[in-house]
């Protein structure tokens, strides 16, 4: 068994692809630095991420795959699934070995699997765009928090930057403990050393809320109740469209 040890970054993965083709030996397992090795392995290779190699692999891929397929690979990386690196490695290897582009060959299990993971992550991205709820803080910043299954925050920032260009906002990923802050000019990634209450619960404290925030929350809750047609109540469909895991952070589902 051939084991590659790398730094668990996307660049690291691309370097691993470069080294594998250079050494003509391909890994059966990709491990993070410090992870326990399997009992029997023939060869352990440690990968040092190298920008020049990354650049060459990416350029090579651009010749083999369309821009859409390349974007698809980065989106899949954000899924952070345990075996996603090995899947992407196999996909990239197949892409290089094939004469023509493999991206539409959905009869191939790896290509199909990549497209499925892409669909899952895109779905979660869409859910974040739908279900994030902003609460207006005293200083005029709009604060919204969520726990997305996959690391989709980088994918939604563009949408919110365009849409809410004239308001300051902070979108916070509670699970991964980082957020994106927009200050009317540009979006910055932010991390906080000391966690205040709302960075753990996702809900602004009454003291931090803007004066009119409670009123609009109540208006929205009242609207949400009024718009449902009693004769057609359908809890199963309701939960299917709006899974229970989101309810904690949805204004209309609180209290």
């Amino acid at each position, binding site marked *: 068994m051939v084991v590659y040890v790398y730094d668990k970054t996307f660049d690291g993965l691309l370097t691993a692809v470069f080294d594998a083709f250079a050494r003509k030996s391909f890994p059966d397992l990709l491990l993070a630095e410090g992870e326990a090795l399997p009992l029997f392995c023939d060869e352990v290779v440690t990968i040092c991420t190298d920008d020049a190699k990354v650049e060459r692999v990416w350029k090579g891929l651009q010749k083999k795959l369309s821009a859409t397929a390349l974007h698809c690979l980065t989106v899949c990386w954000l899924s952070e699934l345990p075996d996603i690196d090995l899947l992407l490695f196999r996909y990239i290897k197949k892409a290089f070995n094939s004469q023509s582009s493999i991206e539409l060959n959905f009869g191939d299990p790896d290509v199909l699997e990549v497209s499925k993971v892409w669909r899952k992550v895109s779905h979660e991205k869409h859910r974040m765009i*739908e279900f994030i709820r902003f609460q207006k803080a005293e200083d005029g910043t709009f604060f919204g928090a969520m726990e997305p299954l996959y690391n989709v925050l980088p994918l939604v920032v563009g949408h919110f930057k365009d849409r809410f260009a004239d308001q300051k906002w902070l979108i916070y990923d509670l699970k991964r403990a980082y957020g994106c802050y927009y200050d009317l000019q540009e979006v910055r990634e932010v991390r906080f050393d000391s966690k205040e209450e709302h960075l753990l619960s996702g809900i602004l404290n009454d003291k931090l809320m803007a004066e009119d925030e409670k009123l609009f929350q109540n208006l*929205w809750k009242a609207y949400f109740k009024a718009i449902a047609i009693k004769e057609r109540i359908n809890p199963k469909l309701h939960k299917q469209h709006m899974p229970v895991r989101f309810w904690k952070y949805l204004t209309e589902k609180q209290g």
Partner: protein
Amino acid sequence: MAVSAATCSLEKHPERRKILIFVRYTDRPFISVSIYMDESVIDKLKILAESAKYDVSCSSSGTTRSNQKGGIGNAAGWGICHSFAEDGRCISLLKIMLTNHCIYDCAYCINRRSNDLKRATFSVTELVNLTIEFYRRNYIEGLFLSSGVVRNPDYTMERLVRVAKDLRLVHRFNGYIHLKSIPGASRELVNEAGLYADRLSVNIEIPNEKSLQLLAPEKDFQSVFKPMSYIQQGVLESAEERKKYRYAPRFAPAGQSTQMIVGATAETDKDILQLSSALYQRPSMKRVYYSGYIPVNTYDNRLPVLKQAPLVRENRLYQADWLLRFYQFKVDEIVNDAYPDLDLEVDPKLSWALRNPQAFPVDINRADYEMLLRVPGIGVKSAKLILVSRRYGRLGASQLKKMGIVMKKAQYFITCNELPVRTINELSPLSVRSLLSRKPGRKADDRQQVIQFEE
């Protein structure tokens, strides 16, 4: 205008809580205007949302527009649902009425003149602020504004247009606006509405003119189809203009939609679907919605007594609608004189396949796109997947299953690389039907039975 309205109410009610909102005028940026919003708005919101909820449409698709400098909002072409009500319907837009006062007395409508219910009216400023503040909190994609008819259609329409105009010009709102075109409104007002709204709609409600006259004596088809054709002309003219001048204004870029009530009158599914099919022939018509009749005015004996809304029939109509729009079916293939109503037990596509066994089995590795679409268990996505993947090699049953084709249904209608032959032609349509229709163990909903109308 907004300023004066606000100062008036300031003088009248100094005790109300003050909310500062910065309003941007197009020519004079950043004038601060103070506007009052308080608990009384909650009551109005409840009343007017209750009145608006029977309108089905809530889609925010059809327009792609990015934000402009200094403005708020954008529109995503695919539409975004922000929440789902407890009945499972999507909440994308703030669906609300400007007022639920109405001069008409239509039998099927909750807001009819003779109903004794709480009435309320929003002021233009209140509604505009509500929309903007909800939008800023990512609650909604925009506004879907409708109204009861007060005084006359033009007076009402003019006030609807004013809300849209304020949102677009004063607040530079780039989100989605869907305006209801009031039946009987004049051409000028419809044309103005088209400049600010993304989508306009006029509801047909009753698919047959005779039944409409019976239930809504003050309305006729003319008052519905006239505004429809105004909208269509507006859309076509603007498209023509934009070919010549790139920045010519867009007119209702997301087209128009309409709605029909199902089950309130004796029309068959054939009548309904033929009308929708004719409507889809018109270039600007994007969606026809079907709304299962909910007995809101039980005392009116012109309407049938139902135990429950005909939800299954409504669902089958939507499925048939999809076949018309995305599956290249013709309306006569779905319903015709021999089969005037849709099958409540199986979906319309399966029903067509069972009636036409001679078209099957379809060879997955050879058939063209149109034929793939007709196989029960294969949707638009799967048909496209098959189309691109079979270039790389012949596809087998296990691959199809992994791709997401519903083999439970499709197996009787296809041949592929290694699938055993036990198709509809060997089994007979009747036995395939019993294999695929509802399991006997599951209780059928007896409230969904067909209601007989006396001629």
